């Protein structure tokens, strides 16, 4: 049984639904654009804070918009799984002899394609609004890597919750957890301007490392994070560890669906 063929056909199903169910895709695209534009416009003065990593607010908030969009695209896979469980379609998939891994990786691949599309569109709009990639192509690649990594983590988490709850009760936890993880990180301001418990939580929050990775090509050339090995490496480790844990969680809960 070829896992790659199964992954491919399940990903195709997911990608095809972008065209067939645009009402599900366009809000997911509009949200990061909205976040980027509104945050960059509202908090334009944030760059005046001494030591702020960039002199353009859009350089700071474009990655945040993309990260929020990627995280929600990831957990959105949980919503799709809930719909398939409720309609019985997931039983059809589970009754096939294909590997359980492909039942997770197939839809995940479809989600990653959506994330690439969303990231590309937001980057184009961001550049049109004045964003500047100080890190060039490498900086852009880091942003894509962070987006794909965060959506993978979100997807594993969303799928695992979908398999536990099997209905929309899981949806509220998915959304709340994404908001908490994102806003208890360096989403709005860098770590060095945070204080107290928020600083402590943000420092240990893996989302902070992933956001650093996303921003390494957008901060000023003079900033310590600019294409720095530490920022890139820290983000990749966070993605690998958290991605592995969340996909493991999803697989474990999928296998427990029969219990």
């Amino acid at each position, binding site marked *: *049984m*070829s896992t790659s*063929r*199964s992954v*491919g*056909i*399940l990903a195709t*199903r997911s990608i*095809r*639904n972008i065209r*067939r*169910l645009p009402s599900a895709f366009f809000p997911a695209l509009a949200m990061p654009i909205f976040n980027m534009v509104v945050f960059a416009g509202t908090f334009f003065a944030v760059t005046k804070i001494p030591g702020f990593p960039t002199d353009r607010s859009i350089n700071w908030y474009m990655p945040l918009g993309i990260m929020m969009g990627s995280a929600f695209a990831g957990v959105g896979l949980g919503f799709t799984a809930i719909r*398939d469980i409720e*309609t*019985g*379609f997931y*039983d*059809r*998939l*589970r*009754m*096939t*002899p*294909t590997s359980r891994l492909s039942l997770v990786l197939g839809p995940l691949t479809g989600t990653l394609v959506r994330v690439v599309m969303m990231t590309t569109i937001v980057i184009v709009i961001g550049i049109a609004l004045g964003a500047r990639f100080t890190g060039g192509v490498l900086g852009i690649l880091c942003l894509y890597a962070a987006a794909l990594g965060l959506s993978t983590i979100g997807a594993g988490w969303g799928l695992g919750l979908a398999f536990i709850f099997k209905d929309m009760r899981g949806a509220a936890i998915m959304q709340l957890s994404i908001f908490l993880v994102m806003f208890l990180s360096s989403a709005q301001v860098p770590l060095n301007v945070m204080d107290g418990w928020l600083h402590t939580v943000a420092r240990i929050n893996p989302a902070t490392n992933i956001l650093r990775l996303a921003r390494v090509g957008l901060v000023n050339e003079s900033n310590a994070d600019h294409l720095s090995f530490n920022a890139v490496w820290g983000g990749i480790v966070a993605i690998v560890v958290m991605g592995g844990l969340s996909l493991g969680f999803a697989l474990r809960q999928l296998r427990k669906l*029969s*219990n």
Partner: protein
Amino acid sequence: MNSAPIIAEQLARHFGDVKAVDGIDLTVNQGEIFGFLGPNGAGKSTAVRMLTTLLRPTSGTARVAGFDVVKQADEVRRNIGVALQDAAIDPLMTGNELLELQAVLYGIASNKMKERASELLERVGLTAAADRRVSTYSGGMRRRLDLALSLIHQPAVLFLDEPTTGLDPMSRLTLWEEVRRLNREGTTVMLTTQYLEEADQLADRIAIIDHGKIVREGKPSDLKRTVGDPTLLINVSREHSDAASGVLARFGEMRPTAEGTLGVGLRGGAERVAEVVRALDEANIVVEHLELNQPSLDDVFAEATGYRLEGADNAPQAR
């Protein structure tokens, strides 16, 4: 070792205190259509979900197509086809796309996939609708597509969970014919239903499940025979009524019937009808109408459970 395609031994599934399936023993033989009959909530679907690897048993064992449903779940999946209740199909996909998806997930080679899909679509009469989204299909079309999907890998054992629920009579007959055809081709079929007629028409053997337990099992004709003798109904002219009653009483116990009709529980069944007619003729009684009513599966069900399946919504729920 027993080589029957479906064997369950003391198979049970509990949800907390609820014993949805309470230790059933079941054997479905090669080439049979086996009917699993019971009202909603009796445990039919739970039993099927265990046999198709979707649900782990709380206790007991089951082997399907020669493989253990827990320890060899993948092997079981490779050898069974399943059409569950409510035709679980993604409405955004077309018939062709669903068949392709199913074929890939069963590991069917790309060069054989299209041929097999066309063959199945033709078989279930959906060739013209193959490229339409399933959301535009009628209930009957969805059931037929569901059946086609379950056959993509030519399974040895086919599970049909209430395949005709909600279908119009014409669609129901079409599906029954297809099930018979598959069975003639060698597929063993396990069919759950709450329709007595469906079980009677299709099944070689049936099991009646109630409150998670199998309460009767056997050939429909044998089960009906266990309920009692068939009723012979006769209409004669009014002046011959008493004489006819006297004759009939020699063949069994008289039974209450509608006014103007005489009824007798015919000991020995249909074979004795000719004998009754001869006896009436010898007594110069002219028979205007004669009818032999066999006990129905509902009679069997009522005898086994204490209530009738027709209108079983009022039946006590599973423990």
